[in-house]
C-alpha cells in the first residue's frame, strides 16, 4: 500500500518550495535592489509608492531600502546559513555519535566527555571567540553555528546507535563479515536517521533564530547583506513606529519553522518502519 | 440459558478493508472456547472489540457484543468502564508488555478492584496466592521486572480475575512462556472454568494448547470464522480444509523424523487484497469456481459443528 500524502503535507511542501523558490529567484523577482538606500525614503509603511522609486509593497527600512527585496534576499542568507550549519553539525555530530555508540569503551568516554565539555561552554562564548580568532565571514558564521550545535546530534546519535547496535541484524551483518565502516554507514545510520531528522528539523528553525541572536549581538551576517535575523534585530528599535520591519520577517520565520517541523514529523513517520505501511 | 458472552456479526474495518468480517460466537458459563488461526487473522482485534478497546485505526461498523444478555454497544464509555475489569476482563498477549514496568505488581492488580492498594491489599494478596504466586507478601511490592515471565503472566491473570468477572478473554496467555510454566497456567485457567464457572475465550495458535483445555474451538482465517465445533470433533474430523491443513502441518510424535511436513501453499492475503468469495480459495486444494465467486456462510455440518466451506463434507 502506498502511503497516502495528505492534503496538509502537500500544502506544507508547496510552501517550502515557495520559500526556496523565493530565495533562489530573489534576484529576478525582487522589485528593488535590496542594498539600494534612499535616506529620503526611510521607514515608509507598506504600500508606499513614489513616482521616482516605484512601489514598496512591504515598506522600507531605516535606510530606505525596500523591505520585500530584503526579505527575499534575506531568505537566501537565512536558508543557506540554516542548511549549511545544520549539515555541518549533523555530519560532525552524527559521525562522532556513531563512533561512540559503536566502539564504546574509551572511544565513547572520550567523545561523550568532550560532548559534555562542549555543552558546558556557553555557545555565545564559542561564537564570539571563533569570530575573534578567525575573523568574521559567512564561513565563520556557519562554522560557529555548526560547531556549537553538533553535541546535540552526538547525544541523539549515540543513544540511538547503542539501541540499534544491539539488534540482531547488526550481529547478522557482523556474521556476514561487514567491517565497522560498513556496519555504521549502511546498517546503523539509515536506522537512526529518524530521530536525527527530528533534531535536524527543529534545529533548522533554531539556526535561523541563532543567527538572528548573533545579529542582535552584532556578529551575524555581515552588513549590509540582509538576513531575516538582521532585518528583525535592526527593526526591533522601530517596533511601534515601523511594525512592518519585524512583523513580515517574523511571519516568514514562523511559517518556515512550522513547515520544516511538520515536514520533519512527517518524514520521521515515513521513515518509521512501524508506520511505513499504514 | 443465556450465554455468558455472545458476539454477533462483528465487522471491523481498517482503512476500507474488513479485517474482521462477520465474526460471531457464544460462550457459556464455565466453558473454554479457543479462538485459533494464523497470525494476523484478527483474533486480537476481535478480543479488543469485545472489550471496546479498539485501536484508533480500527473502526467497528457492524455487530454487537452481549454480556450475559446485555447489549454492550448501548453503554456509554463511563458505563463501559464499570463493565471492564468487573464483569469481563482480559489477559494480554505479552505479560511483560501489558504490565506497566514502573508500577508495582500490587498496585496494578488492585486497579481491578477500583480501590487503592492500601484498602485492597488483603484481596490482592489472596488473589496472588490463588494464581499460584509463592510468597505473595513479598511479590506484591515488587516491580514486573523483578518477576519472571511466568509470574508476570500470573500477575496479569490475577489483575484480570480479582473482581471475579464472569467472562475472561485470554489473548495468547502462554505464547511467551516455556512449556513447564505454560502447563501451570493452563491448569489455573482450567480450574477457573470448572470451579468458578468463568466463561473463557482463549486465543492461541498453538493446537496443543487447544487440545489441552478447550471445550470448543473457533478457527479463524483472514478475518472470518472458518469452522467452529467441539474440540474433540474438530481434531477428530475437521470440516474445513484450512483446519485440516493446519493440523496436518504439526510435527507429531508419531511422525518419522525429518519427514516432510504438510504445508499450506501460498500466503495469507493482506486485508486490502481479500478476494471475493471464500478467502481461503486461493490456497485451498478443494477450491472451485463457486468458492471463488460466492462467500460460504457458516452452516451446521454435524451437531454443534459449523463450517464455512462449500465442500465441508469433502474435507478429509
Amino acid at each position, binding site marked *: 500500500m502506498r502511503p497516502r500524502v495528505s492534503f496538509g503535507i502537500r500544502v506544507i511542501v508547496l510552501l517550502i518550495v515557495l520559500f526556496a523558490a523565493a530565495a533562489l529567484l530573489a534576484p529576478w523577482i525582487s522589485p528593488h535592489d535590496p542594498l539600494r*538606500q534612499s535616506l529620503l525614503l526611510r521607514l515608509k509603511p507598506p504600500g508606499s509608492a513614489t513616482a521616482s522609486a516605484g512601489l514598496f509593497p512591504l515598506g522600507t527600512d531605516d535606510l530606505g531600502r525596500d523591505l520585500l527585496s530584503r526579505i527575499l534576499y534575506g531568505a537566501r542568507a537565512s536558508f543557506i546559513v540554516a542548511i549549511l550549519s545544520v549539515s555541518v553539525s549533523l555530519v560532525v555530530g552524527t559521525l562522532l555519535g556513531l563512533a561512540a555508540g559503536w566502539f564504546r569503551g574509551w572511544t565513547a568516554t572520550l567523545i561523550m566527555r568532550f560532548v559534555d565539555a562542549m555543552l558546558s561552554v556557553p555557545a555565545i562564548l564559542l561564537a564570539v571567540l571563533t569570530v575573534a580568532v578567525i575573523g568574521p565571514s559567512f564561513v565563520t558564521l556557519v562554522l560557529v553555528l555548526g560547531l556549537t550545535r553538533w553535541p546535540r546530534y552526538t547525544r541523539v546519535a549515540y543513544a540511538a546507535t547503542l539501541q540499534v547496535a544491539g539488534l540482531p541484524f547488526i550481529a547478522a551483518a557482523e556474521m556476514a563479515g561487514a567491517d565497522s565502516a560498513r556496519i555504521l554507514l549502511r546498517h546503523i545510520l539509515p536506522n537512526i536517521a529518524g530521530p536525527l531528522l527530528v533534531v535536524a528539523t527543529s534545529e533548522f528553525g533554531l539556526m535561523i533564530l541563532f543567527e538572528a541572536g548573533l545579529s542582535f549581538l*552584532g556578529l551575524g551576517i555581515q552588513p549590509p547583506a540582509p538576513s531575516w535575523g538582521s532585518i528583525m534585530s535592526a527593526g*526591533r528599535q522601530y*517596533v511601534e513606529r515601523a511594525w512592518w520591519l519585524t512583523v513580515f520577517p517574523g511571519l516568514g520565520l514562523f511559517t518556515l519553522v512550522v513547515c520544516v517541523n511538520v515536514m520533519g514529523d512527517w518524514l520521521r513517520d515515513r521513515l518509521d518502519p512501524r508506520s511505513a505501511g499504514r | 440459558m443465556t450465554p455468558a458472552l455472545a458476539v454477533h456479526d462483528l465487522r471491523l474495518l481498517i482503512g476500507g478493508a474488513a479485517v474482521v468480517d462477520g465474526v460471531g460466537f457464544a460462550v457459556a458459563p464455565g466453558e473454554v472456547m479457543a479462538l485459533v488461526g494464523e497470525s494476523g487473522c484478527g483474533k486480537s482485534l476481535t478480543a479488543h472489540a469485545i472489550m471496546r478497546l479498539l485501536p484508533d485505526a480500527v473502526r467497528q461498523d457492524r455487530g454487537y457484543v452481549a454480556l450475559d444478555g446485555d447489549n454492550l454497544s448501548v453503554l456509554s464509555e463511563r458505563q463501559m468502564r464499570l463493565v471492564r475489569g468487573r464483569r469481563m476482563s482480559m489477559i494480554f498477549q505479552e505479560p511483560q508488555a501489558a504490565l506497566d514496568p514502573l508500577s508495582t505488581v500490587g498496585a496494578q492488580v488492585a486497579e481491578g478492584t477500583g480501590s487503592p492498594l492500601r484498602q485492597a491489599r488483603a484481596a490482592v494478596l489472596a488473589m496472588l496466592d490463588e494464581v499460584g504466586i509463592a510468597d505473595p507478601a513479598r511479590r506484591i511490592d515488587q516491580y514486573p521486572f523483578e518477576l519472571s515471565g511466568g509470574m508476570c503472566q500470573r500477575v496479569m491473570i490475577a489483575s484480570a480475575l480479582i473482581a471475579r468477572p464472569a467472562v475472561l478473554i485470554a489473548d495468547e496467555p502462554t505464547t511467551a512462556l516455556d512449556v513447564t510454566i505454560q502447563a501451570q497456567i493452563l491448569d489455573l485457567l482450567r480450574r477457573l472454568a470448572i470451579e468458578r464457572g468463568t466463561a473463557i475465550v482463549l486465543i492461541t495458535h498453538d493446537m496443543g494448547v487447544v487440545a489441552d483445555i478447550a471445550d470448543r474451538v473457533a478457527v479463524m482465517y483472514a478475518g472470518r470464522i472458518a469452522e467452529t465445533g467441539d474440540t474433540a470433533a474438530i481434531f477428530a474430523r475437521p470440516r474445513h480444509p484450512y483446519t485440516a491443513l493446519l493440523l496436518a502441518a504439526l510435527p507429531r510424535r508419531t511422525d518419522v523424523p525429518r519427514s516432510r511436513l504438510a504445508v499450506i501453499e501460498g500466503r495469507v492475503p493482506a486485508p486490502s487484497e481479500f478476494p471475493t468469495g471464500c478467502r481461503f480459495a486461493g490456497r485451498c486444494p478443494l477450491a472451485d469456481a463457486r468458492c471463488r465467486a460466492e462467500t460460504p456462510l457458516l452452516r451446521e455440518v454435524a451437531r454443534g459443528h459449523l463450517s464455512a466451506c462449500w465442500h465441508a463434507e469433502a474435507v478429509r
Partner: protein
Amino acid sequence: LSAHHAAAQPKTELTVDLAADAATLDPQLQWDTDSYSIYRNMFDNLLTRDVAGKIVPQVATAWHYTNDTTLVFDLRTDIKFHDGTKLTPEDVAFSVKRIVDPAFKSPQLSQFDQIAGAEVTGPAQVTLRTKSPYPALLAQLVKLSIVPKAYVEKLGDVRFNQEPMGSGPYKLRAWQRGVQVTLDAMPDYWRGKPPFASVVFRAVPDGPTRIADLRAGRADLIRGLSPDDAEALKSERQVRVLSVPTERVAYMFVNALAGPTADVRVRRAIAMAVDRESLITALQQGFAKPVNEVLTPANFGYDADVKPWPFDPVQARALIKAAGAEGAKISFLTSPVYDRRLNEAIQQMLADVGLQVEIQMMDQPTYLRRRQGTPVEAGALSQGRWSCACQDADGVIFPLFRSGSIWSKYSNPAFDTEVDAARATLDEAVRKTHYRRALDILREDVPGVGLFQDVAIYGAKPQLKWTPTANEAFFVMDMAWQP
C-alpha cells in the same frame, strides 16, 4: 496612581537608566562612561568644567605655574569626606601619587604619566611637577578625583573599590552588582544640599527597554537615545528629550599607508563622496553638528576656517578613476559599538563613486587589535567616535595621526613637527597657530574625514531640569525637579 502622588510630593529619589553597571567605583581605576557617571557624584575633583566647558576650581581654589613644569594649587579647607574627616592636601597628593604609581596598574595611568611628583607645600597647598611642559595637564586633572588617604590605606585598594568613599554630594548606600547603584545625599555638602535625597543608577543595556522604562515611569532619566528614538519621543508629552553637542567627533579613519587608500587621490575622493549633510539630516535627524575637521568646536584648537572637501560625487569618481582604483575592494572595519546605519550609508555612498566597500564586523577587542595593528591589518576604513575627555586638539589629532602612534596609519613629518611643537608650549596662541597648520596638512592628506560633532541625547521626565554638558559629565548636583 503613583505618578499622581509623585507630582504632589517633592521628588526624593531620582532613577537613572544607564547602559551598564559601574565597572568599578574606585574613581582611579575606570573611566568608562557609566562608571564615571556614577562615581563622579561621590567624589570631588581637583578641577572641573562649567556648563560652558571652561575649567573651573573645585577642590582647588586657584593655581599658578611657577615654571613650565611646576604647578601650584591652593586648596579649599572646608571639605569633608563622608565619614566626617577633613579633606587635606595630603589626600590630594596621595590621590595623584596613587594614580601614577605603576604598581597600582591604573588603566588611566597614560593620562597622568607626565606627572613627575606631587608634594604638600603648605597647609592648603599642593605642588605638581611634570616631566616636561604639558599643556593638557589641567584638562587631564579635571578627571582626577580626590580619595581619602587614611581610608584607602586602611581598607586597601580592593576593598576600597567595593566600599568607596569620597567627599562628593552623594555617598554610596548600596551596590547591587550588575543591577544598580544607590546613592544617598550628603545634606551638609559644601556646595549646598543635593537636589534628591537619593539616586538610583540602574543598568539597562537595551535601548528600547530604557525607553520603555522612561515611558512607564520606571526611570526618570535615561541615557543613550538614538536620534531616531529621540525624534519619535519628541511628540510624547510624558517625556522630554535633552541633547547636547559633545566633544566627541564622529570621523572616518582612512588608511594612508596600505591598500588602495594609500593613494591620496582615493582618500580625497572618499572625502568628497561622503554626503555629510544628509547623514546629519536624514540619519541623525539633526542630532549632530557638521565639523570641518577631525575635531569638534568643543576642543581647543578647533578652527572653523578650515575648508572641508565639498560633497562632489562626480569629481570623486573621476579621482578614483584617475587613481585606477575603480571597483577596488576596500575593507571597512567596525564593531557592534558603532552605528550600523552610518556604516551602511557610507558604504552606499562610496559604492556610488565606484569603491566596493566590504564591512567587517567584529567584537570590540578584535576591532581594536586590528585597528591598532599594522597598516595592513587595520583595514582601509573604519568609523570612529573620538573623545579624549580633555577637550584639546592634543588629545585627538596627536594620537590619531602623529606617526608612531598606534592609531595612526599616516605619516607626514610636517604634520608631526606641528603637533609636537603645539605640545611643547603652554602659550595658547602659539598652540593655536600650530594646530591650524596641522589641520591644513590633514585636510590635504585626508588620513581621516570628520563627519560630525556627536550629540549626546537623553530622555527625561518633563519635570527634570538639567542642562547636559559637552564633556558628558553627569552631575546630579546640577539637576533639579520642578513638579
